[in-house]
């Protein structure tokens, strides 16, 4: 049973435009959500996170939105740059439980010139 789902395996966006990556979850106990970025042959890199007590968190070009009633979160990248081309993983956890992350299957973002 996939508790964290990323239904779009891939996304292609033009440079300068907005990239929107989506993630859905089923476990209502999750209270902290994270996005990781992964380049080929490297480990995932932490990008941005959000607590369930917030509905938005912003860090430079990256904004994460959380809709708890819909059990949905999204990552917005504005403006998109070619260096953003990578696989993006959504992850969720129940805090206070040794930070055991549950990951989605990832979305491959390609930013074209």
């Amino acid at each position, binding site marked *: 049973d996939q508790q*964290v789902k*990323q239904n779009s395996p891939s996304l292609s966006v033009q440079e300068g435009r907005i990239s929107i990556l989506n993630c859905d979850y089923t476990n209502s106990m999750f209270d*902290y959500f*994270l996005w*990781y970025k992964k380049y080929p*042959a*490297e*480990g*995932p*890199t*932490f990008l941005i*996170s959000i607590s369930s007590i917030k509905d938005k968190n912003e860090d430079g070009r990256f904004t994460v939105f959380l809709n708890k009633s819909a059990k949905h979160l999204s990552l917005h990248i504005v403006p998109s740059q070619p260096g953003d081309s990578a696989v993006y*993983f959504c*992850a969720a*956890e129940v*805090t*206070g*439980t*040794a*930070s*055991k*992350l*549950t*990951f*989605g*299957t*990832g979305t491959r973002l390609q930013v074209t010139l």
Partner: protein
Amino acid sequence: DAGITQSPRHKVTETGTPVTLRCHQTENHRYMYWYRQDPGHGLRLIHYSYGVKDTDKGEVSDGYSVSRSKTEDFLLTLESATSSQTSVYFCAISPSSYEQYFGPGTRLTVT
């Protein structure tokens, strides 16, 4: 970069042989984790540690064991490797709940 190294970075082994992967950290973080990444599955937790000699199972622990005798080292052992354990293995560390920081990964092929 968080101070995490993994060794070896690549390994090819035969079915039935034992394999040990090592994760080493220089951050003195309490929590350490082993994940595997497979196409269509994202990253899945194998085992984790919340202190020296304190470990617990994750989602996909069958066929794997771990040990942590020092804060800085977390070992993952495949007692008898199978082809289904061909994967990319990532170690991660965390000072507490919330974010984890990942190592560069080990690509394991079981033939």
